[in-house]
């Protein structure tokens, strides 16, 4: 599903002394099937943006389009439930939201609410477990008996069982170890490609944005600060630093390399062995 924000402003506690603009005149377009990374500091408006994607909030001003659904301040779609069955949100620390007696019941909770039949739920549960790489033997166990990483997979399976077309991920790897982080991100990336999803990843990790995203959107104080492909965005090191954001480690290294050696190696998302070859040519003086 295509996602479009047109001049969206969102104001918390309007007309009160606590009035606060979380988003201001924000416009962007995400074509269907894109993997987008949204980056910004605490307070940049990332969470407010996410809440617009499944109609938890509607804009104070402007328009949000998700596929055929339109959200404005005075026009909520009548079929909000249908929108929510198409936009799956994995919130931060989703394992905190597990509540059922068994893993099977927890995964079934979402689809049940959307009126999916029992047989279909059973089929989707098995499919979702396969996608998050958990064994079917766990189905009748309590989710609270599992390790932290496994709990998170159960919570994610619950979102996948809704079979959304848009997947919104709010820092999905926070608190996991490197192996766990890579497994979860690779899993989302495969899903994104296999199921043709539109994926929106909120992250602090510039390295993940570089590795997985087609497009990057950088927010600062509720407005769009920068937008583009990872290469375009990460080439603008000074601009990013002006809003206290870092660039991926490889870009930092290439910048320091140029400062030290007086010769540039342009960043084009090349692999580390390609970089090593370029460095070796410069160091040996065979350009």
């Amino acid at each position, binding site marked *: 599903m295509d996602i479009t924000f047109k001049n969206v402003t969102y104001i918390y506690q309007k007309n009160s002394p606590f009035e606060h603009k979380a988003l201001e005149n924000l416009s962007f377009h995400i074509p269907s099937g894109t993997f987008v990374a949204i980056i910004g500091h605490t307070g940049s408006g990332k969470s407010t943006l996410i809440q617009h994607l499944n109609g938890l909030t509607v804009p104070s001003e402007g328009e949000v389009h998700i596929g055929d659904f339109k959200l404005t301040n005075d026009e909520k779609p009548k079929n909000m439930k249908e929108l929510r069955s198409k936009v799956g949100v994995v919130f931060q620390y989703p394992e905190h939201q597990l509540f059922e007696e068994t893993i099977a019941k927890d995964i079934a909770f979402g689809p049940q609410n959307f009126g999916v039949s029992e047989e279909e739920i059973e089929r989707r549960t098995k499919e979702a477990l396969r996608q998050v790489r958990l064994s079917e033997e766990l189905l009748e166990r309590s989710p609270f008996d599992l390790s932290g990483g496994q709990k998170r997979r159960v919570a994610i399976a619950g979102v996948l069982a809704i079979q959304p077309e848009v997947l919104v991920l709010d820092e999905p790897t926070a608190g996991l170890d490197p192996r766990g982080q890579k497994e979860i991100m690779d899993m989302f990336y495969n899903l994104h490609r296999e199921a043709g999803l539109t994926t929106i990843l909120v992250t602090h990790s510039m390295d993940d944005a570089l590795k997985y995203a087609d497009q990057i959107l950088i927010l600062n104080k509720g407005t769009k600060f920068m937008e583009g492909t990872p290469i375009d965005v990460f080439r603008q090191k000074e601009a990013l630093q002006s809003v206290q954001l870092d660039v991926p480690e490889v870009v*930092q290294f290439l910048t320091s390399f140029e400062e030290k050696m007086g010769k540039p190696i342009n960043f084009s998302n090349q692999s580390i062995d390609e*970089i090593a*070859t370029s*460095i070796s040519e410069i*160091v040996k003086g065979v350009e």
Partner: protein
Amino acid sequence: MRKALIEFRNVSFRYSDTNPWVLKDLSFSIYENEFVAIIGHNGSGKSTIAKLVNGLLFPQEGEILINGVTVNEETIWDIRREVGMVFQNPDNQFVGATVQDDVAFGMENRGIPREEMIKRIEDNLAAVGMLDYRLTEPHRLSGGQKQRVAIAGVLAIYPKVLILDEATAMLDPRGRKEIMQTVASLSEQQGLSLITITHDLAEVVQAERIIVMNQGEIWAEATPREIFSKRNQLKEIGLDVPFVAILADELKRAGIELTKEPLNHEELLEELWTLHSKT
């Protein structure tokens, strides 16, 4: 020779009789004034070590000594005065309504006189760079600021060792860097032993010694430089290999002879510069 501050003697631990052993016959020492990093993936037993040090858990086998005293039910209150801990989630550790109330909490529990408390609040908030925030409400702070306040609160009770148990895991990269710089300079100035427990190798290059845990046992114990050179093995036990180590490998493959294993960008660039000026 330096005095051993923490000693594990053949320690084995499991959560119950039916559960597998989390730590198996573990022995190591940490000395006065030392900066040690304990790394390992989730489930390697690294956090259990922290809980055993200050008596939140007790081992089924073996013995743990802190400053020469065995950890048991009778000694834990004295031991907790010597071992300060900061945990992963900053929001779970705040009790005070303001930053200075929070720093005061640990001292109040130990009956430290008011005059002395005020002095220690100022000294320790200044040490972590948070003195300007002493009247701020905790929820107005960033994650990294909260962790610095938590560190000030722990330091105010003058522990001999500070343990950071994944204390940077929930912070963004900038917050992580700030915390690690703060604690490294504090441990140097105050002669404090420092143990950082983490799965992020890039964070531990300043440590004097790294203990790598895998499946409840010590997998390796060496300097950061030695550990960095074992990158293929590190990957096998689920740890990330730092960018600079991967690049050093690729450079060797491309025919660049490095004289030592680089720990950071600066060291690698310095070597490249030296090689370049020779050609």
